[in-house]
């Protein structure tokens, strides 16, 4: 039973982080129907800037909650800048191009960013400092430490909080309304005076911030990062987004959680070798049965 609970918590943690990345994918897709292939790299860059920031600030003597908060803020800020730059250079000029061009451009950007970090930093694994286990005020978690480590609790709670904030942004703010309007009908939204470029930029910022938080959290959870982590994580997060129905934010979260659980249980009960296979098998199966994803809406085509 304990083993089961452990796997459950592990799956929830993993799924939570996938959800943070998947949301960025799904929001961008909802707005400009683009698979932002380089989104996984933004997550990786978030982890790296987070690492640099944490080493820098802890050398200044910062610890605990202040350190964690500052690290996340720095990572989010830089990831947002990378996301914006990416949009401006690799996607914005291709707004009217055929579908294939932006995707290739995105793949190019992904390869570029991955090797950029590899060359400026290191091709090897880097140790990520343990920012969460000794946070003051979390000692009450000790009794359940055998089931869920503090960092896992931290990840789960933060993801839940972020989802609440995101829901608020999407449902209650003007930006969220504009985003939803653009994803329904970009032309009509522009006619009502919505600045498309602004909405797209904000979507990229929002998505990048979420990915960066995911990057810092994964660093804390696995304690090591390298320049390759973005690729597979990005791929799986996109899988999660597609699973749930691309363009749907709750769908992305649902897809991410399913994926997290599936991987965790496969690794636990079957074999760790096939953990990565599961994601793609699941994807193929669900799309075969329900091509628009779990919560995706089938769009009636007007002819």
């Amino acid at each position, binding site marked *: 039973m304990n083993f089961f609970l452990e796997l459950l918590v592990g799956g929830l943690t993993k799924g939570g982080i996938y959800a943070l990345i998947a949301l960025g994918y799904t929001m961008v897709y909802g707005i400009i*129907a683009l698979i932002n292939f380089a989104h996984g790299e933004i997550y990786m*860059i978030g982890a*790296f*800037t987070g*690492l*640099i920031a944490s*080493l*820098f600030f802890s*050398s200044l003597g910062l610890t605990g909650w202040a350190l964690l908060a500052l690290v996340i803020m720095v990572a989010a800020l830089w990831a947002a*800048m*990378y996301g914006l*730059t990416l949009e401006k*250079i*690799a996607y914005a*000029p*291709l707004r009217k191009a*055929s*579908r*294939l*061009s932006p*995707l*290739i*451009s995105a*793949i*190019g*950007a*992904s*390869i*570029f*960013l*991955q*090797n*950029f970090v590899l*060359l*400026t*930093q*290191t*091709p090897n694994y*880097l*140790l990520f400092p343990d920012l969460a286990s000794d946070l003051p005020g979390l000692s009450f978690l000790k009794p359940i430490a055998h089931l869920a480590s503090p960092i896992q609790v931290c990840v789960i709670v933060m993801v839940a909080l972020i989802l609440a904030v995101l829901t608020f942004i999407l449902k209650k703010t003007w930006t969220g309304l504009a985003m939803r309007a653009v994803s329904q009908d970009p032309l009509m939204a522009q006619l009502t005076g919505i600045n498309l470029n602004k909405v797209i930029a904000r979507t990229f910022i929002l998505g990048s911030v979420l990915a960066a938080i995911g990057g810092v959290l994964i660093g804390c959870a696995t304690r090591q990062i390298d320049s390759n982590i973005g*690729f597979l994580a990005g*791929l799986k997060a*996109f*899988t999660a987004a*597609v699973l749930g129905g*691309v363009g749907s934010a709750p769908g992305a979260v649902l897809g991410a959680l399913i994926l997290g659980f599936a991987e965790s249980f496969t690794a636990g009960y079957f074999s760790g*070798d*096939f953990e*990565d*296979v599961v*994601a*793609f*098998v699941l*994807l*193929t199966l669900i*799309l*075969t049965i329900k*091509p628009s994803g779990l919560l995706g809406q089938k769009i009636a*085509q007007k*002819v």
Partner: protein
Amino acid sequence: MSLKALKLTLVKAWPGALWLIIVAGPLVILRVNEITGRVEFVAERVVKLLVGAFLAAFLWGLFRQLSGSPEGRKGNPPPLKRLGLSALIGAFISLKVNALNKSRLFWVIVALCLLFFPLMTSPYALKVATSVLIYIALGLGLNVIVGLSGLLHLGFAAFYGVGAYAYALLGHYLGWGFWVCLPLGGLAAALLGLALGLPVIRLTGDYLAIVTLGFGEIFRLLLTNLDVTFGPRGIGQIAPPGFFGLDLNQTFKPFLEANIGLNPAMDLNKVWIYLIVLGLVALSVKVASRLENSRLGRAWLALREDEIAARAAGVNIAFTKLTALALGSFFAGLAGVIFAAQITFINPPSFSFMESIYILVIVVLGGQGSIPGIILGATIITVLPEFLRGSDNYRLLIFGGLLVLMMVFRPQGLLKRGR
């Protein structure tokens, strides 16, 4: 472009450069030391960062003006459309190709040069040439799926891998030879193409892309984790293709060395493989050009352009998609068998996602749907890295950057599809 406009572009580059410095700065000048676990300030990169950021911003502005893109046009200088370097090269090459297409003599000369190429060259050049040819075959195969039918396939390397592993495994376990395995490898890939096709018939666009990507990853992960395929260690000592049971090096080499001046380091087995793949490419080009002007080829094009209109013209979508997938995969399977024979050792990383991307780029780089474009694309993708100095990662960095720039400034590819 006037001097004044150039100056203006220089001045306009500053804000962009500043932005790039802020964005890229921390990762460039601060490096985490993996041993001490501390952040180091790398002073010698500061100048590089400043110069690099300014140069990037300046060239970006310049390109945008030259390519006459909307943002570039806002400025003072008049748009000098299609004066970009790549456009010039593209126009030049397409002119040449079109003019030469007509002449039969030209093709005879090309064929002779290609046939006797191994006799005049080094083993290294032969290896590169064989790679180019294998990539042309792969590109032509993927072109059926992506270029003609518009099905975005991101897992094509898996089908290439099926061919390679089919030969390696059948050779290892059953001792089957190249000539038996060549059609089998093609068929196995085609069958897998159909197996992938059946569930994805209903999928379109990006969903299809992501499923094919996932399919490719499943294949690679299975190769890595299964014992039958020898996991990550891969399979070595793959036999060269037979030639009527003769040992080529023993039988022919002394004669060729003495009389024609064959490079003594040349392995005749590799020459034989080169000739086989040359034959395959010739056949593929022939078949591909036939397909383009056939009922089936037009059905693929119709599918790419507008699925509903295609159906309204009586095109059976399922059949059309499946034939495209099966046929494209068949090419890949053949290329895979030859690849395994050429390289004699295969392991899963040869069939990774990046490999799929390389093949996709070959199709897009040259100009979608254009056969000369694919030949050009395969040549560039294979030969260019041989010239770029520095580590693999520098090459990849440049490769990634070039992909973005090409899509932004010349998305239609270097050559346009001629009609």
